[in-house]
């Protein structure tokens, strides 16, 4: 099984790539000191598709996703996101790009004490650089209404004024998703979005995230250890092992047991050698 990531050279067809291939990663490398975390990761994702990213703990999933929007600075390689050459952007341009990419974390990362509505409104900060989006009380009416609509999308319109520390884990993650929707993103990167939720809430959140991405034509990459989720909610599964992209297959060609064996280091390396 030599499942090398399907390569779509960014230079081969520069015209249509922007629209049809919003994510193009080429030869991405990252080390922390002596530890090489990502080795030559090359990957492209077509518009509107959902990609699952699997791999054992420490294989580099979070590092990869963070490198895409430079929450971590990669060492070398190239990243093209929505037509921008990410690694050469200046601060202002990077902010503009980030405002078009939603990022959902394992932890909801909401601002404590503030209401759900204000937290969702924060999603507009990248696109509306005004103090008025810091607190819902100051915000223009149309943004308040849009934030409420985003909350409604995740089924929490009734909780708009509730401080987020008084929400359950699943509800908090919904608010985080609503915050990402507020960005009107073209891409969503989700780093183990359901890993800290109970199975039922996890299922619901994954369902919600995949549906919203599909309905809005958002390209989605989500990392997960739920192999059923990886297959059910993606069209394509990619796998990292020790920072190397060693798996890349359409979900239709995979079963959970295939994926489980990907997690076992000895067996798969025997197969691939």
């Amino acid at each position, binding site marked *: 099984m030599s499942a090398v990531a399907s390569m779509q050279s960014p230079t081969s067809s520069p015209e249509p790539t922007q629209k049809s291939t919003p994510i193009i990663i080429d030869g991405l490398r990252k080390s922390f000191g002596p530890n090489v975390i990502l080795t030559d990761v090359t990957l492209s994702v077509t518009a509107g598709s959902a990609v699952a990213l699997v791999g054992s703990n420490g294989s580099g999933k979070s590092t990869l996703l963070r490198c895409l929007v430079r929450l971590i600075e990669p060492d070398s390689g190239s990243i093209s996101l929505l037509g921008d050459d990410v690694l050469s952007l200046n601060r202002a341009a990077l*902010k503009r790009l980030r405002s078009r990419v939603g990022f959902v974390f394992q932890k909801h*990362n909401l601002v404590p004490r503030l209401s759900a509505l204000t937290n969702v409104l924060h999603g507009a900060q990248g696109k509306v650089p005004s103090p008025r989006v810091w*607190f819902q009380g100051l915000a223009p009416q149309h943004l308040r209404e849009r934030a409420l609509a985003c909350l409604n999308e995740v089924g929490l319109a009734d909780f708009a004024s509730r401080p987020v520390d008084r929400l359950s884990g699943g509800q908090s993650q919904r608010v985080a998703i609503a915050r990402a929707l507020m960005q009107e993103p073209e891409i969503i990167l989700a780093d183990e979005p359901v890993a800290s939720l109970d199975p039922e809430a996890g299922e619901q959140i994954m369902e919600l995230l995949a549906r919203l991405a599909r309905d809005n034509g958002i390209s989605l990459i989500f990392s997960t250890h739920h192999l059923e989720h990886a297959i059910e909610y993606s069209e394509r599964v990619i796998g990292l092992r020790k920072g190397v992209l060693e798996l890349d297959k359409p979900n239709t060609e995979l079963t959970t047991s295939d994926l489980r064996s990907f997690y076992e280091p000895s067996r798969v390396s025997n197969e691939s050698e």
Partner: protein
Amino acid sequence: MNQAVLATNPSNLPSRFERPGILSLFLTLITVWFVAYSFQGAGISLSELATGFPEMISLLSQMLPPDTSRLPRIGWSLLETFQMALVGTVIGIIVSFPLAALASRATSPHPVVYQLARAIVSLFRTVPDLVWALFFVATVGLGPFAGTLTLAVDTIGFCGRFFAEGMEEVEKGPREALTALGASRTGIFFSFIVPASLPSFITSSLFSLEKAVRSSVVLGLVGAGGIGIELKVAMDMFRYSEAAMIILCIFALVILVERVSSRARKKLLE
């Protein structure tokens, strides 16, 4: 289960007490010696305590009953003391806020600014308030303004440090999330750092007010306004029953402020 217990080798148990190293033994001995030596330096004297004791009793008996005739005057003076404390604290908090943002690793724009801001805050904190009071009396003159400035500086030393620590202690997840969605540093500061560290701001501010009320009482001793001067005059002129009244009033004020402050803290933090 039993077998597993037997299988572990008892010699793997750590000993009950760590054997002290030669250095820590030496340091301990030095410390003990210095404490003993300090008793001598502190002028501890049982005979003086014995002779002083009847004096204390007689002074206390002269204080009773407290003299209520000067109560209105004491009341006004107490109000001035509290106003000094309040205004000093408010000014201090207002200045502390931006200073703390510069002195907090989480928000400071540059390491040099960070070190500088921290240096200012520690200078304000480590120089005792009576020294500041002497400085301000010498520069702006006798009266409550000198006291107010002293309390403001004191508050900056205290709140500057604890506001900064409050800002450093916020979790880092929301900051990363806001960075990821394109928020600016200013946006992150006001929409996350400030609301997230609000509880620590409130706690430090109220505590600082309590502290200011307590220190405002003694500032009068060096002429920096407030009720301290009344107390000193009463004592110097042997009007002990009036002094007793003043002490009772101070006591009442401090207790009242502490009560109100802890109520307010509960209310604001719930």
